[in-house]
């Protein structure tokens, strides 16, 4: 027995050492996640500093963007980012809601999975593919069939008419919003579907027991119960739309100006960076583009953080698809 007693302590101390090593490497990897976010924020701030120092708050309020005179203002890209995202949500929310209802309440069991997977695959398609499709397929269709109709039908109206005036370019703010809407539908509908599924059957059955129709149960039982999750899902979609780059770059037209018409070309923060960054000469130009990036980071971080906080209460595993 003396051999065992002699070996055991060494064996145990080796185990302890490996335990400590393994544990600290997992901890280090986990801390790297925090470090990454901090590093991203810090590097953007440092890169943006020269531009912010030079233009002060004027950077946020000016529309001018002129590499020749070295004058830069973020207003046009910020406006474009917010308008395209808002418009995309306007189009995407009803469709996503419908898809989520179809998948949770309506579809027969055999249809649920294939349709659900197909919608999820829409999220797997890379954004550059949306871009090339948007430019070569969607934009011509909108230009020839939809935009003339909008210009003739809505253009003469008071107030909103202004949004639909001008020549049908095909590419522009409206087209970008349309592509964005298709891209965020799978994200929003996946979250909505998951939160609808957390509604206890007992609640729905009580509704049916009182004689409610399927729609009445959905609108008066499911939706109120899932309200927080629905808003969280929409904000998650908004976060996607705000930061989406390649698809928008293809179809928005890349004009640094604020047009009153939705049919006119514009730009977004991410599209400006994607288009100009690799070719930007001069420190102020580069720094201004990084400052745009910092602005985008701030906006998306706020939206995504809010969305995640709203969704935090829900079962994490139910939301693993996003």
């Amino acid at each position, binding site marked *: 027995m003396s051999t065992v007693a002699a070996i055991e302590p060494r064996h145990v101390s080796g*185990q302890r050492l490996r*335990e400590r090593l*393994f*544990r600290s*490497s*997992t*901890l280090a*990897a*986990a801390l*790297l*996640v*925090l470090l990454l*976010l901090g*590093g*991203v924020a810090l*590097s953007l701030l440092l890169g943006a500093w020269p531009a912010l120092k030079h233009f002060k708050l004027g950077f946020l309020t000016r529309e001018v963007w002129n590499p020749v005179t070295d004058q830069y203002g973020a207003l046009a890209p910020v406006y474009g980012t917010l308008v395209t995202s808002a418009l995309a949500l306007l189009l995407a929310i009803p*469709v996503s*809601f*419908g*898809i989520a209802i*179809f*998948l949770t309440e*309506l*579809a027969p069991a055999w249809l649920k999975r294939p349709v659900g997977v*197909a919608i*999820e*695959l829409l999220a*797997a*398609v*890379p*954004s*550059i*593919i*949306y871009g090339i499709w948007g430019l*070569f*397929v969607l934009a011509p269709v909108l230009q020839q069939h939809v935009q003339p109709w909008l210009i003739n039908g809505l253009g003469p109206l008071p107030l909103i008419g202004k949004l639909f005036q001008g020549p049908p370019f095909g590419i522009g703010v409206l087209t970008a919003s349309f592509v964005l809407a298709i891209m965020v*539908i799978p994200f929003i*509908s996946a979250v909505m579907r998951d939160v609808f599924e957390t509604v206890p059957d007992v609640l729905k059955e009580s509704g049916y027991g009182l004689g409610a129709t*399927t*729609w009445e149960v959905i*609108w008066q039982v499911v939706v109120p119960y899932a309200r927080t999750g629905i808003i969280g899902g929409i904000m*998650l979609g908004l*976060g996607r739309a705000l*930061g*989406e*780059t390649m698809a928008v770059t*293809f179809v928005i037209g890349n004009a640094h100006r604020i047009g009153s018409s939705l049919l006119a070309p514009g730009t977004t923060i991410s599209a400006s*960076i994607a288009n100009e*960054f*690799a070719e930007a000469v001069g420190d102020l130009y580069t720094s201004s583009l*990084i400052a745009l*990036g910092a602005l*985008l980071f701030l906006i*998306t*971080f706020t939206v*995504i953080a809010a*969305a*995640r906080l709203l969704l935090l209460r829900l079962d*994490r*595993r139910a939301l693993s698809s996003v």
Partner: protein
Amino acid sequence: MSRRALRSLTNAGALALSGLATAIGLFFLGAILWTLVKNGVGGMSAQVFSAMTPPPGSSGGLLNAIYGSVAMTVIGIAIGGPVGMLAGTYLAEYGRHSRLSTVIRFVNDVLLSAPSIIIGLFVYQLLVVRMGHFSAIAGAVALAIIAMPVTVRTTEDMLLLVPQGMKDASTAMGAYPWRTILSVIYPAARSGVVTGLLLAVARISGETAPLLFTALNNQFWSSNLGAPMANLPVVIFQFALSPYPNWQQLAWSGALLITASILVLSIAARIIVSSLGPGGRR
């Protein structure tokens, strides 16, 4: 119309609209795939896989771009995958209930949805500026940073599915946690974790924005990680927006190639997950 008829009419209308919404979603998936097949298949030839990206007007292929994409994706997942798995292991095992883990989970979820172009800017500042030039390794690091949060999330979720009884059994036999994790938990969660890695590969292999100013592009063959490297997404971007028909054709072929690979990966991952059964294990 009676109130009752109105209610059932509203019901039918609403449900029909939800069916219509689903049809709209499916229509766009179909439309995109159809466009890719229609425009991409014609240009598919052996040359696409054997020749370099051509100058405007002459014929060529995508070999250097395919190589670059594969190389950067492999390096990206080779860095981001293991680090993500370790971090996921911490969240699921060592720090499951700690306050730190709650914060890390939250930050990871934020990174998961963060715009990829921001990651590109970060790596540009971190590596490209320091090195003084664009490089494939910078592109790979950008992809790794995008792959990591995906892996963290799926690893944690999959490890949590391993029954506590198995862990307890291992602990009762005197195993230290590291031994339990390596010899019991990882094998039990293997297919789930592999699925997570597949999804991460699918996610990064189509990323364009973070490569635009890290790996840039290269018209020629290059296997030098310290130099700019061609890659499919950036080549598609450049060629699709060019006025040259042969470049546009190659862009469509590349688009078809990349989408087909990603859809195959995504579907394979889902098949593995569903074969795990409702309990999530083999």
